[in-house]
């Protein structure tokens, strides 16, 4: 297990480094020189050259990359060429909002998927099980931002029970914070819950056919007891993998949902950065999101090994 962990960690770190090269190379293709853009068309060549020196963009690309990536490792994302403010604090401010959004969405998805999926599997021969399968199939077809718009229509326009957008920090008012996040959480969670329900159902169906479950029942445990004790822990293995992949999907979904609900998260920051041609900001946010996806995959792989004794 330790050897596996070390190997997997090495792959993670190498992947993050290569991803850094890719992101940097991509952004280096961006047309226009940051110094020229900052100074405008009427700037003298001397002024541009001086600003280039100040930004450090006059150095070779390789040097700039190591400077940028070396900074990232120490938590320094550089200083924006456009706004002259450090990028790191902007990202860390927004990261918390997006993390809360994603985790809340995940909780909603789990709360929906685990009971419904298990129910649909146990009752796979009766109509209600089939209805759950059909509803989850329909849910998969709805993108999170569309779910968001529908939820706004029902809960904000019609019922006027919840705000249609905006974000209130927790420190300002915990109650309002909760109200401002309920619909975004539901938008992300309902759709992912529909996807997850299918996986939970098929995972539980698979373990229901296993010999050990029959043995447990033969030993006198009831069907429900056997499923709880032996079935669900085994069904959890494939579900955890999907959950990890979904977390990555949720992270991206959050970018769009933040736009629907005007939530100041990483997605909002990224899109504003692109609009303002803020190179370092876009580079930093993309890097954080990609590193998060890689980290999630790492945690999933390790969890998978921990849960499945056969892999140890």
């Amino acid at each position, binding site marked *: 297990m330790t050897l596996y962990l070390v190997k997997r960690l090495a792959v993670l770190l190498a992947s993050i480094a290569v991803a850094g090269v890719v992101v940097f190379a*991509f952004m280096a293709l961006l047309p226009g020189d940051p110094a020229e853009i900052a100074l405008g068309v009427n700037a003298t060549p001397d002024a541009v050259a001086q600003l280039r020196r100040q930004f450090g963009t006059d150095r070779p690309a390789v040097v700039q990359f190591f400077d940028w990536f070396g900074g990232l490792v120490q938590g320094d994302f550089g200083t924006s060429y456009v706004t002259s403010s450090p990028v790191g604090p902007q990202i860390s401010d927004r990261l918390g909002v997006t993390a809360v959004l994603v985790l809340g969405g995940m909780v909603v998805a789990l709360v929906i998927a685990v009971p419904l999926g298990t129910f649909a599997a146990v009752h796979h021969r009766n109509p209600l099980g089939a209805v759950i399968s059909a509803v989850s199939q329909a849910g998969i077809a709805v*993108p999170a931002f569309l779910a968001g*718009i529908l939820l706004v229509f029902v809960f904000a326009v019609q019922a006027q029970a919840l705000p249609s957008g905006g974000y209130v920090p927790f420190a300002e008012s915990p109650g309002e914070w909760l109200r401002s996040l309920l619909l975004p959480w539901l938008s992300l969670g309902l759709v992912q819950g529909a996807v997850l329900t299918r996986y939970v159902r098929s995972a539980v169906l698979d373990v229901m056919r296993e010999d050990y479950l029959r043995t447990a029942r033969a030993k006198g445990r009831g069907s429900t007891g056997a499923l709880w004790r032996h079935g669900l822990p085994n069904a959890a293995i494939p579900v955890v993998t999907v959950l990890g992949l979904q977390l990555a999907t949720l992270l991206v979904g959050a970018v769009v949902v933040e736009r629907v609900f005007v939530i100041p998260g990483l997605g909002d920051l990224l899109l504003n950065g692109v609009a303002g041609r803020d190179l370092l900001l876009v580079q930093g946010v993309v890097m954080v999101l990609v590193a998060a996806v890689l980290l999630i995959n790492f945690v999933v792989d390790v969890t998978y090994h921990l849960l499945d004794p056969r892999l140890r």
Partner: protein
Amino acid sequence: MRGRLNAGLLVGGALVGIVVLAALASFFWTPHDPTFVDAARKLREPGGGYLLGADKYGRDTFSQLMVGARTTLYVGIVAVGIAAVIGAPLGVIAGMTPRGWLSELIMRVNDLVFAFPALLLAVMLGAVYGAGTLTAMIAIGVATVPAFARVARAATLQVMVTDYILAARAAGRRRPAIAVRHVLPNISSVLIVQASVSFAIAILAEAALSFLGFGTRPPTPSWGRMLQESQELLFSTPRLALWPGLAIALAVLGFNLLGDGLRDFLDPKLRRIRAEG
């Protein structure tokens, strides 16, 4: 004919058929010019030649939906095409040489690309080359490559241990010939299913990108942008969000059902397993 028609195949096929028909018909006929702006028809209610009404610029919603179907299919076909053309051969190579360095390299690069979701790629591409249908298609296509490569690799691994591959190798056939003559035809059903599922994902991605302004540029109609434009009018004219939303959901549902249906139809073994389960 390998299997029986099933409900998924029929319903999915019908939904996809409607989208394809609407897209094809839009080349020859739409009730009105979908891009024609007319202040007099602003937010016109449905009826009187305007089946689903008009939007805030007076453009006919039904005509926009028809041409939007074209955009959706166009993006889906090109994106899935890119993913299949790059991903499937890579997966076959990796599957035919499972212990080689090439296989290892392909799968590691695959994992790396997997870390760049379509939306991030599209935003990055959009920042560099300007957002538009082309950058969206390329981003969605590249982001879908890993899915094809993984599926093709897994299917190839299964095919490689069969007797007919052994026979072909014993007969002295070279690897490229085996790949083209024996592996590809035998994994084609898996790839077709993957294409259908990927198409559904591509539609979702295109809609999300257009919604964010990183997809199809105005005035070309797109379901995602129709939704984005309708959002500010949700309080007064919710029907503007209803139709493109419904179109996206039904198209995605159609391709998902078609994928599931095709899987059952093309793989009799799987159907038997399901029937037993």
